[in-house]
């Protein structure tokens, strides 16, 4: 009706403003009671909805809501709960047995979820596809030997070697999603854009670059209780535009730059959620290159840089300081890791001992985002004070990540790096092994001892032992003085005050099923 009114005005050539005012009034004003539909901002569009070839958290979050795994993450923890599996247990280091809930069905009439589907879904990761190409996330199931179906609803997951990380890295996450074998065979390539699942939500609609819609799955039979009838995801490129949209009540939930925390806390009907991250941001030299092959130079670097100033400057003093690889809420967190205070005297002395009393020139390579550039600027200023002249080399994503192949990292001097973390320490340590030199170990730091610890940690099942292993590994990194840890990141979210988001500790894992009324 009100639209009709507006239309009349427009047709009558009536002033846009008048008409505008009318719709302005029509726009949803912040509701105190939670509606049954919410709009959340995602920072880019969905890309690939095939669990094995997904392109990142934005895809996974949808998959986790639409498809079931044997287990699922518990909201707000690195811990898991049962989902498709009625029971599941680690029989031995290399065997996991599971029993599915009866009566789970796939949407769009693809029938019941059976152990066959589980076998198919998991073994996809270890068999090359028709084109002979391995799936992108093959490594998640690297340890899998095969899945044995023991009954319509029961089976055994058999591993080549012990893989304790499997639970949180794989089973509870994207690579553990159970897809319908029938659907896959029917849809072929189309499964990258059509999601058939048995989960709490169905993938109702996807208007690329406009929005995707999740809607409660009436036939879902499982322990998870989704709250909102509809969840709409809107891809928004420009962060600031998203902030404005939030203030204009066009979206109900978004992640924002921690720098803006104050401003957002001041907004009406808005609750701000803060979450410590598990990523790891650090910078360090390529230790194969002179003069960084000299440990004294590396130590000097570590002492010359004022990490607190970086956090205050580039991170608005809102990010927690990192002193080692693993974040506080992870197994293997090194509580007593040394906290290096800035000490120019010692730094200068170390350089002098290394015969570089009057400093040297070097280059710091960073990604072309605002924060890395800010960090670089501060590092530049800091190092200048001990006579080290730093040129900043900013690369945009394509060129930057290309350093990870064809030995691209060989040319680097200093580099500022940010890798995103997962809930199992083994995922974090794997990039620093000698084997990764030329790929993702850009600093080319080689330590036989570390390699062994990494391999060992990946197999050991006993948490206590693992913790010890990873502590040792981090001590080795510390001794090398090759890594200047900066932060594990913090994530800040704005939600309408009636909305309680369901987030995982890594910050970009969102459990849409756990979004609920505050």
């Amino acid at each position, binding site marked *: 009706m009100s639209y009709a009114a507006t239309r009349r005005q427009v047709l009558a050539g009536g002033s846009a403003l008048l008409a505008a005012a009318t719709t302005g009034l029509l726009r949803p004003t912040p509701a105190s009671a939670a509606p049954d539909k919410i709009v959340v901002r995602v920072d880019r569009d969905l890309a690939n909805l095939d669990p094995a070839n997904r392109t990142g958290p934005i895809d996974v979050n949808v998959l986790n809501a639409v498809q079931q795994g044997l287990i699922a993450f518990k909201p707000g923890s690195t811990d898991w709960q049962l989902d498709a599996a009625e029971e599941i247990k680690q029989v031995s280091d290399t065997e996991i047995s599971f029993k599915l809930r009866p009566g789970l069905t796939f949407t769009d009439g693809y029938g019941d979820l059976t152990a066959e589907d589980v076998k198919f879904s998991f073994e996809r990761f270890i068999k090359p596809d028709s084109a002979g190409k391995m799936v992108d996330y093959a490594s998640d199931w690297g340890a899998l030997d095969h899945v044995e179906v023991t009954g319509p609803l029961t089976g055994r997951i058999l591993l080549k070697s012990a893989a304790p990380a499997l639970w949180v890295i794989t089973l509870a996450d994207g690579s553990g999603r159970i897809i319908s074998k029938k659907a896959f065979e029917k849809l072929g390539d189309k499964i990258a854009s059509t999601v058939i699942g048995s989960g709490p939500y169905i993938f109702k609609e996807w208007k690329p670059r406009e929005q995707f819609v999740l809607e409660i799955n009436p036939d879902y039979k499982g322990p998870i209780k989704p709250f909102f009838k509809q969840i709409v995801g809107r891809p928004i490129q420009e*962060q*600031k535009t998203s*902030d404005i949209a939030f203030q204009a009540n066009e979206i109900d939930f978004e992640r924002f*730059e921690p*720098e*803006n925390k*104050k*401003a*957002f806390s001041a907004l009406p009907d808005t609750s701000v959620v803060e979450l410590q991250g598990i990523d790891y941001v650090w910078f360090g030299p390529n230790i194969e290159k002179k003069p960084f092959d000299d440990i004294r130079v590396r130590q000097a670097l570590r002492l010359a840089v004022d990490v607190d*100033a970086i956090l*205050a*400057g*580039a991170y*608005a*003093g809102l990010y927690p300081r990192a002193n080692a690889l693993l974040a506080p809420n992870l197994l293997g967190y090194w509580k007593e890791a040394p906290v290096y205070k800035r000490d120019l005297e010692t730094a200068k002395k170390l350089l002098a001992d290394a015969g570089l009393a009057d400093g040297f020139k070097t280059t710091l390579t960073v990604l*072309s985002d*605002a924060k890395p*550039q*800010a960090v*670089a*600027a*501060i590092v530049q*200023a800091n190092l200048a004070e001990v006579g080290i002249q730093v040129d*900043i080399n*900013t*690369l*945009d994503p*394509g*060129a930057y990540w290309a350093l990870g192949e064809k030995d691209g990292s060989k040319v680097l001097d200093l580099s500022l790096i940010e890798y995103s973390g997962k809930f199992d320490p083994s995922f974090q340590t794997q990039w620093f092994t000698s084997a990764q030199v030329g790929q993702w170990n850009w600093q080319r730091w080689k330590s036989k001892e570390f390699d062994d610890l990494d391999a060992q940690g990946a197999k050991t099942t006993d948490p206590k032992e693992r913790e010890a292993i990873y502590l040792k590994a981090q001590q080795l990194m510390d001794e090398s003085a090759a890594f200047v840890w900066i932060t594990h990141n913090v994530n800040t979210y704005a939600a309408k005050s009636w909305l309680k988001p369901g987030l995982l500790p890594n910050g970009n894992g969102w459990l849409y099923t756990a979004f609920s009324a505050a």
Partner: protein
Amino acid sequence: MARWLLARVMNTHAGAFGLVTVVVLLIVAIAAPLVALHDPNAIAPIDRLQPPSLAHIFGTDHLGRDLYSRVVYGTRVAIGVSIVVMSISLSVGVLLGIGAAYAPRALDQLVLSIFDIINAFPSIILALALVAVLGAGLGNLILLVSVVFIPQFGRVARAQTLSIRNSLFFEAEKVLGTQPWRILLHHVLPNIIGPIFVLASMNIPVVITIEAGLSFLGVGVRPPLASWGNLLHDGYTYLDQSPWPAITSGLALMLATLGFTLLGEALRDAIDPKLRRER
């Protein structure tokens, strides 16, 4: 000549305003180190996003850098880029244009279709496409924006040269056995200079906008180097905490484009009213 031109430009308000603005901007750009009150890259995390004060007359940005100084150095980038770009595309364009006019038909056609190809892209889009490949950065920015403007100069130069080549006295000169380069020097160039000069001055504000625009999108000048585009984007990002970065850089940008536009038009009307309609 110069005095006459100056007089013609100054005798309209718009022209005078344009000239003064541009002169001021030029001075600021050249004398940036003297005009700026602080090191534009000096970071002071503690007093980030300060409002204007005696210490920081435009306030500070999100890293506590002195905005005024950054705007000043931004002027240097904006004007530097636009002048370099213009001189590159001007010289390349004119050379190609004259060359084409003298060259055999086939070659001439080739050059022309190259111009057509470049012109088939909306300038920003071409710049983006090139950035996609070359990557951002000051050097690339200058390079690719220059490419965008070559055809304009090329066409004017070619047209002028042809009109002279077909003119009677050119024949006469040939008969008299004057070397081509003499003819070029004494008859072609003098005729080209006017329009070319106008064209260049009219395009400078366009280049300034493109530079700022690409930098705004984060594919132009690389931070920490100060560009109005970067400042504006950062300002936009931290608008909730302080409007000053956005306001100051935005105003600087608009003042510059305004000044150069007015001056350009004044020059055009003074030198070559015929060009009034062309673009």
